């Protein structure tokens, strides 16, 4: 192994392990702010360090600190303390590992060697995701059962049976996708979606397999225990569901596990149906061959985007009431300066690439990989937004409706989809 190999291993593993964790902050902030905006209120906007509120991000820090320093209670009546402690660990670990096989950029070629941009460079892709999400059931069951609490038990019962029954339509939806893509490797799947059809329509999974997309996304919502399928924690009936007895950091680990699972499943949805890391209409080869025009376009677009972004910050980051020397305006100036500095650094790099880099060199490959990582993360963020958006729109299902939907609607539809897809693929040769 050369030094480069080792660096690449570290980079890939740390991206796939820490990006989901960093996105926790994005998820939680987005959940709160989007919920606020959807309901015409503002969401958390007060917590700040020296007046820097970072759009509500500091609130997460405050909550995290609170949870970390809270007393960690294990009730007297918990008989199996080991399993009780194990449960949040399982749900968090399963959530993080399930992201390991999702590619976040096209295979990176450096010094003539190619590196698959996944946490674990393995070709079993989507099956791994299905296998690992299956494990999250253990966390739920153990938490609910070892808490020795009727609400926890009922919550775990609902949650586990929901996860188990929605795994089936999910797996079947995946099968019809696999017939189309001809591979279970998520890298292959993402590369397949980089092609275009008739020259201008990207061959994304959602266009090739709309029914499978609907089934998979609905099942993914159910797997993550998100509204409209969050019966496991139906507050009005079950107080909090399976993590009712957990306090402080153990609860926080459950909470974080839920959001990491959400991140992982939106990453998988993006990879399967929304072109993965592909920038629409531009495949990797095209970008690498035309690195100079691409760098030039970025060079122009970024300041323009930043100009309007700064205007947006100015407009919204001010006190909405009469106030002398509004400190929020000063705060907005700080944000805008930080962003401009960031943009300036990027511009310098882009200029360097524009001046010196030749097509098909390491620099070009790196730039394209970075662009693809950004595209992937933007797409995942949009998918996470859909999760939040659905949560604050749709009321909860009743439990029988939930099982009815899973077994009587999604399952037959998924089976039908497999037959139709198979027939079409065979007919088209």
């Amino acid at each position: 192994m050369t030094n480069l190999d080792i660096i690449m291993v570290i980079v890939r593993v740390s991206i796939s392990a820490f990006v989901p964790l960093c996105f926790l902050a994005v998820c939680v902030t987005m959940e709160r702010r989007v919920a606020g905006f959807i309901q015409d209120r503002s969401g958390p906007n007060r917590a700040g360090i020296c007046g820097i509120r970072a759009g509500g991000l500091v609130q997460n820090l405050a909550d995290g600190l609170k949870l970390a320093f809270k007393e960690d209670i294990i009730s007297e009546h918990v008989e199996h303390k080991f399993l009780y402690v194990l449960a949040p660990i399982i749900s968090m670990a399963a959530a993080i590992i399930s992201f390991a096989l999702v590619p976040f950029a096209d295979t990176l070629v450096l010094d003539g060697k190619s590196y698959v941009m996944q946490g674990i460079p393995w070709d079993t892709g989507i099956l791994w995701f299905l296998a690992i999400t299956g494990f999250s059931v253990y966390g739920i069951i153990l938490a609910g059962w070892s808490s020795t609490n009727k609400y926890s038990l009922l919550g775990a019962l609902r949650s586990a049976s929901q996860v188990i029954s929605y795994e089936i339509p999910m797996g079947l939806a995946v099968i019809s996708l696999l017939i189309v893509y001809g591979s279970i490797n998520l890298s292959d799947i993402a590369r397949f979606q980089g092609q275009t059809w008739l020259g201008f329509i990207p061959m994304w999974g959602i266009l090739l397999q709309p029914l499978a997309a609907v089934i998979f996304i609905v099942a993914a919502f159910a797997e993550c225990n998100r509204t409209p399928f969050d019966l496991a924690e139906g507050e009005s009936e079950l107080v909090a569901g399976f993590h009712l007895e957990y306090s402080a950091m153990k609860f926080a680990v459950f909470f974080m596990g839920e959001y990491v699972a959400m991140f992982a499943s939106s990453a998988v949805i993006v990879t399967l149906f929304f072109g993965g890391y592909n920038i629409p209409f531009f495949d990797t080869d095209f970008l690498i061959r035309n690195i100079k025009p691409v760098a030039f376009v970025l060079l122009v677009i970024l300041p323009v985007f930043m100009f309007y972004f700064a205007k947006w910050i100015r407009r919204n980051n001010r006190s909405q009431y009469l106030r002398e020397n509004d400190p929020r305006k000063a705060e907005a100036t700080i944000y805008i300066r930080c962003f401009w500095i960031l943009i300036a650094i990027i511009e310098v790099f882009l200029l360097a690439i524009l001046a010196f880099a030749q097509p098909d060199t390491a620099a070009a490959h790196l730039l394209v990989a970075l662009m693809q990582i950004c595209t992937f993360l933007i797409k995942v963020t949009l998918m996470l937004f859909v999760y939040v958006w659905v949560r604050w729109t749709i009321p909860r299902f009743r439990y029988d409706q939930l099982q009815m939907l899973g077994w009587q609607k999604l399952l037959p539809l998924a089976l039908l989809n497999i037959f139709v897809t198979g027939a079409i693929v065979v007919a088209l040769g």
Partner: protein
Amino acid sequence: MAAKVKQLPSRGGTPAEKVYLIEIFKGMAITLKHFLRNLWDNSNLYVRHYPEVQPDIPARWRGRHRLLTHPDGTPKCVACFMCQTNCPADCIMIKAGTRIDGVTEKMPVSFTIDLAECIYCGYCVEACPEDAIRMDTGIYAFTSSNREEMKIGMTEMLSLKGGFPEEEYQKGLEGE
């Protein structure tokens, strides 16, 4: 007044509604509209920026209690125990004593209200025959780090001023 009954047509029967997804997308369009409007410009939020912008308190608002005084500064209270008897939360504790200023026979030696127990129902105000206690200070936020500080005594209540002009307060009483 007879209850108004409005018959709403039952929804969910048509095939388009049975598919459910279409209706979900309609609902999501509404929430997205709200979200985008507020993201674009957050000055239209239906929010009071509370500690900086205080709400308008009407004169009928039942806030913290105060004890009223005669023009010469002596308390109006005659320690008749009406309010204490009437209090559903048992939060008023009065100790009666002989009046020293000669206006009436009795006056309270101590008059304590435990605000942690008070439910702000206003029965004490209604029960008072001397108009000696009112809840018109307009103070609605009262916090403390321990229970003892939640008990307020006679001197404190006597020193509080009404938050509203007299005629506005009287108008509020008429409305009741």
